[in-house]
């Protein structure tokens, strides 16, 4: 802590409540980029400056600057939208973006390719639909995710309300967003004070998830703070609290590592859960590493100071003690595709969107399908942490209409025909927009899966729900370290291969082979699948077998 603060820290404290020179940056006519510090600040407003990396060289030869554009991500606790909001999102996406609506791994959506001049109109349009992007990125509490698993609707309603409450409670207090993007008057005199974030915000991003066992669809242990609902007789009795999860690591930096959250105790009501999340954030604010951003996530703070210290400090700040952690059993992380009836009798249809890319392609017109369904006003929309989309709260009489629309635009066939592994798989954005990407992910994974499907078929493993995830760099946005087979890009066309995580997401995988190209990946998988098909115990998952076979 004695070392000097990272440059981002100065940018935050000098930012006058996240304002910086964003207004001036927007007026710079010579560039599609923002001024340097503003590029950091805009994240706190839910946006990233990106550039089309495929086009850099050619544009440079043309004496043109990089093709900058912005990604905007919504703050959408629990991943919920009304049909009216969906229509708005659809129309906004059609105007100033690439047109693709991307469902993220954190239950929200993002739009890409927005030019600097179009940011304000985009945000204004969102605002009219009562949507915002506040704190969707940046060193703050990010979008709060909550179990989407539809068949437990009674507790789900509670859990989603809690997600909303956490999101509101941990939202930055500055009105910069409204001034900069919505041209609202500045509330000058009393500069708003923010007791949680002060003027420094958090050292790093801060992610909160709420899970409802036995489904760990939110990958609860990969979050900084995980709340696990303890349900008895259909009622939530309280929450287990787990801290210090996070996927990010850096190649060649052994001080960095992926980590699953450690359960530290139980609280018996929602108010206490809220208080706990809040104070965990204040401890991280005060103790987190602010000099090296690679070591500033909560997981490193926890490991540096120790769990005992952390829990003592937490109890002191909360003013009450944590109870002993309750036992929980997770059995799966899978989304329930297709039609599901919920407890209150309404219906949900969960459809498969590969890597969350919602678009119209050939016969599969997912974007149109959802738009048409939204036009009926008869279904709400919820995103899952596997980048899928659920149409929910559908009354029985409305089911046929919606089914017909989904059929008409190929959504049902698309969902039913996708293989089991494809439906479990995830890949991050990577090329061509992510500046950190070392290798392809979302653009490449679908083709790789096609090859893997053939191998699986060869060994009659078609129905195995093996969880595979790929990212373009070790930052781990698609949670590859919690996959039974994880691919993490090391260089263009090369991936580290990880094996051995469990199906429910309670155990991390381990490095199996380094920097493999496609041929090597397929060869090694061929061998692994062969052994697995021959030697597995009944019902034994691939990840578990990987350990037993001592591959890792």
């Amino acid at each position, binding site marked *: 802590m004695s070392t000097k603060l990272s440059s981002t820290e100065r940018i935050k404290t000098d930012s006058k409540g996240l304002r910086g020179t964003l207004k001036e940056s927007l007026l710079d006519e010579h560039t599609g980029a923002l001024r340097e510090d503003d590029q950091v600040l805009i994240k706190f407003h839910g946006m990233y400056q990106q550039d089309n990396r495929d086009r850099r060289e050619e544009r440079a030869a*043309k004496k043109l600057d990089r093709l900058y554009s912005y990604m905007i991500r919504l703050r959408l606790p629990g991943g919920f939208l009304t049909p009216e909001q969906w229509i708005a999102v659809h129309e906004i996406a059609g105007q100033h973006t690439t047109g693709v609506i991307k469902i993220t791994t954190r239950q929200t959506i993002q739009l890409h390719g927005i030019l600097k001049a179009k940011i304000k109109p985009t945000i204004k349009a969102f605002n009219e639909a009562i949507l915002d992007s506040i704190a969707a990125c940046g060193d703050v509490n990010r979008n709060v995710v909550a179990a989407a698993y539809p068949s437990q609707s009674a507790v789900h309603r509670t859990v989603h309300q809690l997600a909303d409450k956490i999101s509101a409670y941990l939202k930055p207090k500055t009105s910069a967003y409204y001034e900069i993007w919505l041209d609202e008057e500045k509330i000058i005199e009393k500069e708003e004070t923010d007791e949680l974030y002060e003027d420094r915000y958090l050292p790093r991003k801060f992610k909160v998830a709420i899970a409802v066992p036995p489904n760990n669809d939110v990958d609860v242990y990969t979050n900084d703070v995980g709340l696990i609902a303890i349900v008895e007789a259909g009622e939530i009795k309280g929450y287990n609290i787990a801290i210090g999860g996070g996927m990010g690591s850096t190649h060649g930096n052994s001080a960095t590592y992926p980590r699953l959250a450690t359960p530290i105790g139980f609280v018996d009501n929602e108010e206490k859960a809220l208080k706990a999340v809040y104070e965990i954030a204040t401890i991280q604010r005060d103790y987190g590493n602010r000099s090296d951003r690679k070591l500033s996530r909560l997981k490193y703070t926890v490991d540096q100071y120790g769990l005992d210290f952390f829990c003592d400090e937490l109890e002191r700040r909360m003013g009450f003690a944590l109870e002993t952690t309750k036992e929980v059993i997770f059995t799966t992380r899978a989304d329930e595709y297709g039609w599901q009836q919920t407890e209150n009798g309404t219906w949900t249809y969960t459809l498969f969107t590969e890597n969350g890319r919602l678009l119209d392609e050939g016969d599969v017109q997912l974007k149109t399908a959802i738009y048409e369904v939204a036009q009926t006003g008869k279904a709400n929309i919820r995103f899952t942490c596997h980048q899928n989309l659920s149409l929910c709260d559908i009354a029985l009489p409305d089911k046929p209409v919606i089914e017909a629309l989904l059929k008409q635009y190929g959504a049902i066939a698309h969902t039913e025909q996708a293989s089991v592994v494809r439906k479990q798989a995830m890949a991050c954005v990577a090329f061509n927009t992510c500046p950190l990407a070392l290798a392809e992910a979302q653009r490449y994974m679908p083709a790789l899966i096609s090859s893997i499907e053939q191998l699986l078929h060869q060994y009659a493993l078609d129905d195995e729900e093996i969880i595979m995830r790929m990212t373009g760099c070790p930052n781990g946005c698609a949670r590859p370290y919690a996959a039974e087979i994880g691919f993490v890009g090391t260089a263009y066309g090369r991936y580290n291969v990880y094996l051995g995580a469990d199906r429910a997401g309670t155990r991390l995988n381990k490095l199996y082979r380094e920097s493999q190209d496609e041929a090597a990946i397929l060869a090694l998988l061929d061998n692994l699948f062969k052994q697995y098909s021959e030697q597995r115990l009944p019902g034994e998952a691939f990840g578990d077998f990987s350990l037993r076979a001592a591959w890792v």
Partner: protein
Amino acid sequence: MITTERNTVLQQLVSGASHDELVWISGYLSGLLGQQPNRAVLPHSASLNITLAYGTETGNSKALAHKLAALGKRQKHKMKVVALDQYKPTQLAGEALFIAVVSTQGDGDPPIAAQRFFDYLIQEQPDLAGLQFAVLALGDSSYPRFCQAGIDLDQLLRQNKATRVQKPLLCDTDYESAAIAWFDQLLTGLGDPDGQSVPPMLANAPAGPAKKVYAGGITRHINLNDRGSDKATYHIEIAAPGIAYQPGDALALVPENPATLVEDLLALTGTYATQEVSYRGQQRPVYTLLQKELNISWLPERVVAAYAAIVQQEIPETKIGLKDLLKIYPLKAPAQFEEVLQVLEPMAPRQYSIASSPAAHPGEIHLTVALDTFSVAGEVRHGLCSHYLSLQEDSVLSFRIHTNNRFRLPPENKDMIMIGPGTGIAPFRAFLNERDADGAIGRNWLFFGDRNFTTDFLYQTEIQSWLETGLLSRFNAAFSRDQEEKIYVQHRMEEHGAELYKWLGEGAYLYICGARVPMAADVEATLLRIIARESGESTEAAQQFLEQLETEGRYLKDVY
């Protein structure tokens, strides 16, 4: 006034004549006229009442008129300077001595601003008996119809019975000293309408070094517009070691006609490519003649008329390409093609502002060439020279340097405001690089505009580094098609009007380069509005302010 028959013969006689021939013909004709009674009698050494009327496109004639007026005043003559578009032709009758300074544009046409005056003389045929006049013609001998507008004006005035006091001077690009000598001669009363007293070499301003033809290989050729743009603008670098030019100058070159077009013409007329033909007294293969020398892509009306006479058909008076002409109004016999060749005119050179600076890019000339695109009956076509240049990735070009002393950098400590949308940015790239290399301390403010920010931002990264190093103090850009309502440079000027006016107040020079229509006119109108608004004065006062700037040489335009 003149019968169609005579006119056709006359046109045949003069069209395509070399300027030496023209001079001779014009001398011959004035000689004939001189034998007629209306002959000038200039009072010796008296104070004269002189009206200098200029018709200009790029300002040379205007500047020259003012210069001559100053000379005349020094010799105690009463001088009045007026633009031909402001001049009421009905006043002609009351003029004592009328001197017209007029340039030639297009295919030998008068400047747009003078067209109305020409039309008046042609249509009204006023009786100008008693009017004494002389014509000073500005032009460029690399154009096929050298000083044609001046020649026409001289003839029109005489046809309307006005009295010429001195032979017209046909000025080439390096005209100033010759023009002054001509004017002096006129003032000292030595003017002799018979033409004897103006030595022939004086009648044509001597061809200066600017007429030299150079050859230079293309070393770089980049389309500056990104994929997805509906424009193509080429940055072209030419090796030019030892070629002297200054920022503000242009490069002039004659393009080649596309081989396919030439082949089509030969096929249409059943001519062999190697067939030797004679054109203006020289023998060469018809292929070379068509490809490298003649204007065949877009014929002026007078050529179409001459063609109609050959094929003896009624052809509407309109511009048209030779290929279409041959298709729609075929020759009566293949042999007529040689006759047709004789009425065709040489290709005119095209100018491109030089975008490089001798100091920053020694031994190089850079151009910024926009591919000219238009559509004919729904079919996309391209302008001849810009299309030719868009295809020359590594060939050797022959070109001339077109000096433009009216578009030069300000003194090194003066501020500079540059308005250069589209290819209008070219000379400013030269200016800025030159100022950078020279360490000039004046501030620089650039306005640029084009269609779309992402695809059409010419020289974006260079502009960014000029901003970074502080070479540019201010920069504004307008992209017209990025939003529903069109935004142009003049809108940005308007937004920053107060600051712009302040710069002018502090002595800044203001430059405009780019498309004449509609850009230059809109920009000027905006400037007037800004000046009126910021000064709180009337439009007339703003007009005067701008004229004052122009007189001080602080308001400079290079528009086309």
